[in-house]
């Protein structure tokens, strides 16, 4: 299981999709989960919106949108066998949000749903003790923005602290232990090579490490501007080219100004990436900035290949 975490707007969904495609191409059955209402996966793959039952994105790749209402029902009725509680409390659209917030229940249930997927077997059996091959080899969780994403991972412990006893407590403990299992669960932190996102990533990684309840698999730096003049011979010419271009004026001068800006952008990006590497010492991969008008499945597949350098 991979939880893909990051600040809003850094491209968590794109990274999730790329990871999923990569796994699928290698013949692993993968599924991407996202929060209800987002429906980003369907849009990225140009498909009909997926619902609470898994929908197909590509060969070996499915997506599922976690709807709190449906997840709560499933959790209480199927996992905990408390249909009465569900009928009384959670079918009430006004009571449910309150209980969810006060108890942190909706976060727990979102994580719980992911665990359910982990517990599903090819033969249809289900549960922590079920035998046989898993229905999904890789579960990718396109998580909410950093703060909320972190509270998602914290939710089992939070529930245990509140309840201390009973079925809810026991289930939360199961989930917590599965999250803490390095063999099974990892976090991927997604960021941009910019000041604020990098600082937030360092902060999030530090917090995760201090709490020690989940393993960080690595960092993906998204949208990195490509190197400019990275071979020494061209670099040597650059100064002459620059001077001549500015002298020529017109389109030549414009192209020189654009190249100058690219160089500066690249240098800044490199500084931020160096800071990430030095501070955290985690495996890190860079995804190039895509210039396509909008991401399509083909662009995603390309990104997936870059991510492949990782495993």
């Amino acid at each position, binding site marked *: 299981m991979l939880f893909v975490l990051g600040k809003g707007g850094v491209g968590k969904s794109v990274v999730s999709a790329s990871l999923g495609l990569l796994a699928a191409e290698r013949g692993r059955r993968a599924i991407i989960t996202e929060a209800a209402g987002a429906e980003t996966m369907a849009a990225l793959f140009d498909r009909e919106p997926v619902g609470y039952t898994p929908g197909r994105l590509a060969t070996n790749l499915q997506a599922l949108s976690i709807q709190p209402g449906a997840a709560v029902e499933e959790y209480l009725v199927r996992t905990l066998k408390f249909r009465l509680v569900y009928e009384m409390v959670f079918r009430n659209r006004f*009571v449910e949000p309150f209980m969810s917030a006060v*108890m942190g229940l909706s976060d727990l249930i979102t994580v719980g749903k992911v665990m359910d997927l982990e517990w599903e077997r090819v033969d249809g059996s289900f549960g922590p003790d079920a035998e046989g091959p898993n229905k999904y080899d890789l579960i990718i969780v396109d998580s909410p923005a950093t703060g909320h994403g972190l509270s998602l991972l914290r939710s089992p412990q939070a529930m245990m602290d509140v309840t201390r006893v009973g079925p*809810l407590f026991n289930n939360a403990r199961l989930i917590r232990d599965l999250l803490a299992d390095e063999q099974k669960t990892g976090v991927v932190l997604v960021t941009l090579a910019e000041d604020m996102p990098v600082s937030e990533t360092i902060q999030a990684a530090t917090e995760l490490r201090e709490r020690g309840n989940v393993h960080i698999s690595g960092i993906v730096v998204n949208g990195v501007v490509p190197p400019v003049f990275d071979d020494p011979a061209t670099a040597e*010419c650059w100064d002459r080219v620059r001077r001549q271009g500015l002298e020529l*004026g017109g389109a030549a001068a*414009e*192209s020189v100004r654009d190249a100058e800006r690219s160089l500066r952008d690249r240098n*800044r990006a490199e500084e931020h990436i160096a800071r990430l590497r030095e501070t955290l010492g985690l495996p890190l991969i860079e995804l190039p900035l895509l210039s396509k008008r909008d991401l399509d499945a083909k662009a995603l597949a390309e990104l997936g290949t870059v991510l492949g350098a990782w495993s």
Partner: protein
Amino acid sequence: MSDSSAPDLNEVVKAHKVLVICGTGGVGKTTVSASIALGAALAGQRVLVMTIDPAKRLADSLGVVGKLNEATPIDLRAALGDDVELSEGGSLHAMMLDAKGTWDDTVRRFAKSQDTQDRIFNNNYYQRASESLSGSQEYMAMERLLEMHATEAYDLVVLDTPPTRNALDFLEAPDRLMAVLEEGILGWLIPKKRGRFSPVAAGARLFGRGREAMFNVLERFMGADVIRGLADFISAMSELLDGMRSRAGEVMELLRSEDCAFLMVAAPNRIALSEGLYFHDRLAEAGIPFRGFVINRVRPAFGEGKTPATPWESNWTRSGEATYDAAVEQVWDEHRRRTRWAHVDRHHINALKAHCGPTLPYVEIPELEGEIHDLDALRLLLAYLE
């Protein structure tokens, strides 16, 4: 930089007392809010900018670190130096909002007795509810906005709204929160008395015989302590509702009034702009005054129109030296890449304008280099906000 038929942003800023700045996360909302506020202050207005969780360095530069829920004056002269022109009477205050602190204030204001206050503050669930109840931040931002507007200490209050996945959540959240508190908690758990919630009756009857069976089940599910704590919290909170409800009504009235304008900050990409469109349409439906877009981080390019495929079709000429010509081709590739980006952004912005019509200001801020985290950098932004 707006269309000639539309009012420019400065006019919009001048004509209103409250600016609500909306947008999804990551588009630079806080920076734009601070910049607009700074501009108005330099122009001689008394301005307050309210923000939730701004970039730490921006907060540092504004000098509001650690001070929550308090309007902190910013010394513009000290921050900007002597050569900056400051109009008479202009001032800038900044306030960092904190949902928990504002809840505390709300409890203090509306609790009818010290006992109720203590019961709420000492309740384990209170902290959790005040932080994570969906809509809390939004409700509290509105609450604060109303309060600051009412002081009449400012000519302009700029509210940087909490980041929401969907910009519209911000508007709907307070209503939803009230519905949850009223209908849900009280309607379900606590019997009404003559159409009003009666805390006294509520406390006594919460575990009444009719509901005993239900609570037994809940108790087995969550543990007895949990249920008892929740019940106590709910009955104490019920006292606050009348006060909160009337405040929520006043907030909506303010937002619909002539004093208030909504601006949206968007980035020029498909997702951000389609949300912008949706937001624009929904505000119009709700009768709330939408007054313009600030499109941030528009990727600039030198040169316009179509760029030829190779430099040799432009005014570059081959030198015959292979590495030199290769370097020129690389320069040209960068040029083409950036021109393409600029076209993509232009395409998205044109689609937005076509949808929303020519009567709104569409202010564009180019993608600037480096980070914006001090007043000087904010002042640079001002040049684009005209």
